[in-house]
């Protein structure tokens, strides 16, 4: 099973990520987002960033946006590219996980796309048959 695919959008861009579990689909959404930002093969993973987000609503769509926006904040405020993601807890309104990456300055890669934020537009977290699917459109 492929981990994600991109969604075409005129001005912006989105991703559709897959997983055999909801947690995996969330982790793959994060991976997909950073694949849009840079080629991750050449990026290291020596630094570890704990991530914890909460949502007001009891729906996982909001947690997905919060998770991705938290990672974008970590990326910009620390100047790091993230490439590995692990979610320990995906509760009703809370998500706890860890992201691994390396400073942009140490990474021999070009930033391909500047992502400003994950939006709520056409947001989707769904289980279909034997897999989970997440969809997000980013503001670029």
């Amino acid at each position: 099973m492929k981990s994600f695919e991109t969604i075409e959008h005129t001005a912006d861009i989105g991703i559709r990520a897959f997983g055999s579990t909801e947690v995996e689909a969330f982790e793959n959404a994060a991976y997909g987002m950073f694949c849009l930002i840079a080629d991750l093969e050449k990026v290291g993973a020596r630094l570890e960033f704990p991530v914890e987000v909460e949502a007001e609503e009891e729906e996982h769509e909001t947690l997905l946006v919060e998770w991705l926006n938290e990672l974008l904040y970590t990326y910009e405020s620390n100047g790091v590219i993230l490439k590995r993601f692990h979610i320990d807890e995906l509760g009703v309104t809370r998500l706890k996980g860890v992201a691994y990456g390396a400073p942009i300055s140490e990474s021999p890669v070009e930033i391909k796309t500047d992502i400003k934020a994950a939006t709520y537009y056409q947001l989707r977290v769904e289980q279909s048959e034997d897999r989970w699917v997440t969809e997000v459109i980013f503001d670029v």
Partner: protein
Amino acid sequence: MELVELNPYLWEIPRTGNMLVPGRIFADRQLMEKAREEKAMDQVMNVACLPGIVKASLAMPDIHWGYGFAIGGVAAFRMDGGVISPGGVGYDIACGVRLLKTNLPVPEIKDQLPALVHELSRMIPAGVGRGGNIRLKQKELDDLMTGGVSWAIKRGFGRSEDLESIEDGGCLEGANPDLVSARARQRGLDQPGTLGAGNHFAEVQIVEEVFDNEAADAFGVFKDQLCVMIHTGSRGLGHQICTEFVKTMGGAAARAGIDLPDRQLACAPIESPEGHNYYAAMACAVNFARCNRQVMTHLVRESFQNIFKSPSERLGLDLIYDLSHNVAKFEEHEVGGERMKLCVHRKGATRSFPAGHPDTPVRYRSVGQPVIVPGDMGTASYLLKGAPAAMTASFGSTCHGAGRVMGRRAAKRMIDGHELKQRLEAQGITVRAGSTRALAEEAPEAYKDVNKVVDICHHAGLSLRVAKLRPLGVIKG
């Protein structure tokens, strides 16, 4: 979806379902044919469902598919019962353009252009998350967010007369720094005077054609003149403010009993604690964005001094105008024969106030407000003037650019960044870009024809052509 032609430049989507007002799109038949295939039309209809919207949910000819609001969207809400929406302003709060004029005719300085473009790219920090040379203390950031551009000028970034050529005199009132989170502040501390990435740019341009001599004189523009255009916004600080308020306003909308057709349209009544708080935080980002462009203006002036070995005042480099095309503002407009205070959202649309309007800067009051329309990097940009018909047709608004027609992935697939750079250079356009792949996303063919978009606005009377500018040098992140 039904579409009614009201005149050759205006189309209406009649009210259906939960729409409180019709949708109206400024376009000619050809642009309309393309635009109606897009989801942007649904977005115009969704905005028409928001409480307190007056007259119509509007879209300018550069309309394209966005998230929540369509890009090119204009919507005005009554103060009593109307809403304010962070998604209707966007993540890049107060993203906008400014245009500087020099007194240098291009034919006389042609040989120095490559060196000038190189110097600008050396002086202006560009790229994702890239900080600048200024690192503010928290108190300084407070002063910047409340004081606007006058803060920057006090710090030595610019000339006092610059203030007369910026919307609201460089400072949007009502900013409250206490409502800007620690995270938003953190992202903004080292970003004044930085370009960022995406569609943002600094360009050296030549005035290729003058259409309106009287207005061109008032703006100080002449044929063959060298100008500089800057396009950027509020950077990480604005993105963070929007992110946080879109989150909290989902709850606010639910509490106010607003049934949102799209979660990204999260909003709150203008006259509610959430509505007031968003406006006060947004105003901080507006002032930040203007200071960002102001500090960059200072870097442009220094670059010119370094190349031409002459004080920048001697070279001109006066500010023609600075405007924001992603913003919500309180303005007075006439609705049904009555003057009303409204909250006007412009999401990828430019204010276009005519001659005589009290908010048109004094120096331009006899001709109308300058409207700056950045085009794509290979074609042209425009200087227009605000027009009276805009006040009745579009809450004093016009287009903000060419508008995209091609997705970013599609552009990257079809266009090679290196080839594009060579092609532009063969056309006499020097390009300095941090990322050639990002450059491909912004290729001219990814955009509508800016000439046509500007023509439609001209014929619809939303803004009138003054001058056309052609790029000579492009700096991108």
